[in-house]
């Protein structure tokens, strides 16, 4: 596996916000600092991506920087400049406008790197497509992006869609909500006041057969910040020593079979269904 470096993207124009998104304070420090602090312990080296006219900017000046060496619009400029500076490393890329992001989301991303994929990314909770700006880009993906840009298309998301990208289900609800407007900022601040760091939902679980016996209960109410049932099952499996891998189970949400990717909402009724043995 290639070395993993971190790249915090802070070169955006923040037009819709009306003020520099890197400087916004959600966590008692500028958001750029918060993003740097969560990424840097997870990577060998960590940089902030800036435009040439931003190098001396007070919010950005204190960090190791990679200055755009590619003259194109959008986040591809930062990605390709990083790749030119260090062509043999993989990049954990993170936009600095994701204040809801939790460390677990990044750790999960890193844990799921595979030699057979050129990138690892999360599926958007909003449209199901890959989120390119909280993702791991292997050198092969950046080479492909370089070629795509030469062909006149600068969209990093399009590159991930058209490449062998490992797509992960959302790890924590709302973690990748990017905050672009003053209204969204207000909402994010409100959600962050919840001490768990993400919107908490209450679920009702019902267990049957072997799972009921191992859990020691038929019904259970629990609060969680997980976005989907996958990580919830992993947590319960550890707690109760359930013998089944998630791939052997089906799940029912609100009384009918449901895909494992179905977004959870407050009040959902969940049943994990072990291999059936009727007849």
């Amino acid at each position, binding site marked *: 596996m290639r070395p993993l470096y971190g790249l915090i993207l802070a070169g955006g124009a923040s037009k819709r916000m009306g003020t520099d998104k890197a400087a916004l304070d959600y966590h008692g420090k500028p958001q750029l600092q918060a993003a740097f602090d969560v990424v840097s312990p997870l990577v060998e080296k960590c940089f902030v991506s800036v435009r040439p006219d931003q190098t001396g900017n007070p919010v950005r000046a204190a960090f190791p920087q990679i200055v755009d060496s590619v003259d194109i619009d959008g986040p591809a400029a930062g990605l390709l400049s990083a790749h030119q500076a260090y062509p043999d490393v993989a990049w954990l890329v993170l936009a600095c406008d994701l204040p809801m992001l939790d460390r677990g989301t990044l750790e999960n991303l890193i844990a799921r790197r595979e030699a057979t994929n050129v990138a690892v990314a999360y599926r958007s909770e909003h449209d199901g497509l890959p989120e390119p700006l909280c993702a791991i880009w292997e050198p092969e993906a950046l080479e492909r992006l370089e070629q795509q840009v030469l062909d006149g298309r600068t969209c990093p998301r399009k590159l991930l869609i058209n490449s062998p990208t490992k797509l992960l289900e959302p790890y924590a609800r709302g973690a990748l909500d990017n905050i672009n407007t003053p209204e969204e900022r207000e909402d994010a601040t409100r959600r962050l006041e919840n001490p768990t760091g993400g919107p908490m939902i209450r679920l009702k679980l019902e267990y049957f057969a*072997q799972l009921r*016996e191992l859990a020691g209960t038929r019904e259970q109410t629990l609060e969680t910040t997980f976005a989907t049932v996958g990580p919830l099952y992993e947590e319960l499996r550890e707690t109760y020593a359930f013998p089944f891998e998630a791939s052997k*189970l089906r799940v029912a949400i609100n009384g009918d*079979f449901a895909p494992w990717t179905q977004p959870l909402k407050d009040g959902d009724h969940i*049943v994990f269904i072990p291999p*059936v*043995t*009727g*007849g």
Partner: protein
Amino acid sequence: MAAAPVDLTLLREDLHLAEAGGFCTFEGWVRNRNDGRPVDGLEYESYEALAQLEGERIVAEALERFEISEAVAMHRTGSLKVGEVAVWIGVSAPHRDAAFRACRYIIDEIKHRVPVWKKEHYLDGDAEWVACHHCQTAPRASETDAHDHDHGQCGHHHH
């Protein structure tokens, strides 16, 4: 889904239609041994609401797929002794071939899809939830059909 024994002659009555030239049943019974261990009885637990819903879907699929007149399926829950009827499928049809095939389809799909779990009580006093054994069994009728659709689990994908 039935928590107590059901009068099978009543189930049969629903199938006895004028257009039907015959009917075919499958009864699943509790047998006295499994994997070489003497069995005293079984306990079936279900997720009842979903078991009912999925069972109704399977019967509706059978009515759609085969030239049959009527189909009925019953599955027991609770404690059953050796020899008791655990599952009952009945299909009537104008002609026998469709009745046999639909009957096979319904029992196969029930075994793969309906959320019911079986705990075996052995003569030595021990009891165990029966492990999934779909993967080793013969393919379902639906899997040999031309338009296969997989609702299974146990190594099949669940998306």
